[in-house]
């Protein structure tokens, strides 16, 4: 792992009450929530916020969610959240929260799985692992569109595709189960050929990999084989519950 210069110790971390300004359904299981923050501060693409739910009797549940938006969206953040059947916080977001509701959050946190403009960049996401990578992709498109960055995104079925209307030429998709009817692109899990094809000349750069532990293990193995240096591969893994 690369040793990084720590970010200046600013003052993240204070709990604050945000307001949900928009909710977008991305897939049957995934929604994106825009949250306006009274104490907003600029984040680095890849960082996360903590969310805290409090019941009337004082019972509390906390989880962490990656930021999906670019820090150029001043005053608000977007969290994209996968609804977990046995979850406690994600079903609240999906089933209870409506526009105008308030939600308690704090962040942005940690400075390792973050993109600071290094290039070239290879992003590899599995399922909702695409979320922090989308913050990087969105930020790059708005700040340095000429900079070499490519997203390799592995998803189960056509209906599970998050950010479907935003995936352009800088994204390579593979469907592991049911591709769209007219699909002529990649199918199946990541393999050597797909990595080699989509990484191309990016192997001299940095890679960000996010997904389940199994996905990340297999993707990092393939990236190492294709020539990425181990210290330039940063990973973020979900636990078995699917939480980041």
């Amino acid at each position: 792992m690369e040793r990084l210069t720590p970010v200046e110790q600013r003052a993240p971390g204070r709990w604050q009450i945000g307001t949900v300004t928009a909710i977008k359904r991305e897939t049957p299981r995934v929604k994106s929530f825009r949250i306006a923050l009274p104490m907003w501060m600029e984040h680095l693409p890849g960082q996360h916020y903590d969310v805290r739910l409090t019941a009337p009797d004082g019972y509390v549940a906390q989880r962490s969610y990656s930021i999906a938006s670019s820090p150029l969206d001043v005053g608000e953040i977007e969290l994209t959240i996968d609804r977990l059947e046995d979850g406690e916080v994600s079903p609240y977001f999906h089933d209870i929260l409506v526009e105008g509701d308030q939600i308690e959050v704090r962040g942005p946190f940690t400075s390792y799985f973050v993109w600071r403009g290094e290039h070239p960049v290879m992003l590899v996401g599995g399922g909702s692992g695409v979320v922090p990578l989308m913050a990087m992709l969105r930020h790059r498109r708005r700040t340095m569109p000429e900079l070499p960055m490519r997203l390799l995104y592995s998803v189960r079925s056509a209906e599970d595709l998050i950010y479907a209307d935003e995936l352009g030429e800088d994204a390579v998709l593979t469907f592991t189960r049911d591709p769209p009817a007219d699909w002529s692109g990649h199918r199946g899990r990541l393999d050597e050929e797909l990595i080699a094809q989509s990484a191309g000349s990016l192997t001299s750069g940095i890679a960000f990999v996010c997904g389940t532990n199994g996905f990340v293990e297999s993707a990092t193995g393939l990236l190492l084989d294709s020539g990425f240096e181990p210290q330039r591969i940063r990973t973020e893994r979900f636990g078995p519950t699917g939480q980041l």
Partner: protein
Amino acid sequence: MSAFISRGFAGHRRTPAEMASRLPPGQYAESGFPVLTAGPTPDVAADTWRFRIDGMVAQQQEWTWEEFAQLPFETVPCDIHCVTKWSKLGTSFGGVSLDALLPQAEPLADYAMVWSYGGYTTNLPIDDLAGGKAWVVTEHEGEPLPQQHGGPARLLVPHLYFWKSAKWVTGLRVMDHNEPGFWEMNGYHIRGDPWKEQRYWND
């Protein structure tokens, strides 16, 4: 305690009362054992593994896997708490107490930087490593420690958040000052006491 109430939140994943007192604030009980690693998983063979104590010590020490296996082995029942909010209650590890290792090196200062294969580091005061609070473990629940959980050997410091329990551990350097390790530089708390909810820098 927050004065804010989340509209419509009842909380259904409550931990049974007899377990709830073992959960630090903001944690939930997880029955699995999630894998969280910041980079690729290092491949460390037991026959090349070493554990070393150096820095400000009277006697630098290094153990091979075979030498390590001669040291007193303890089974450690414990609860573990990950800063990402999950806790695993009632698990166990097996290994060698730091109390069997540190005295052989005779630390001359109060802090340590622990390091791992793959480049990971984490800092701890010697006080958090000595006195029956820390182990170098090679087993989890009676089985060899799986590679993805830090095998062949990891540090175990169950009273602090689990990022302090460095996977693929290979050394400990005694230092006269407290210096942030990998996650401590990248946003997590310098000490990481789950009962004080010391998750991030400003907690």
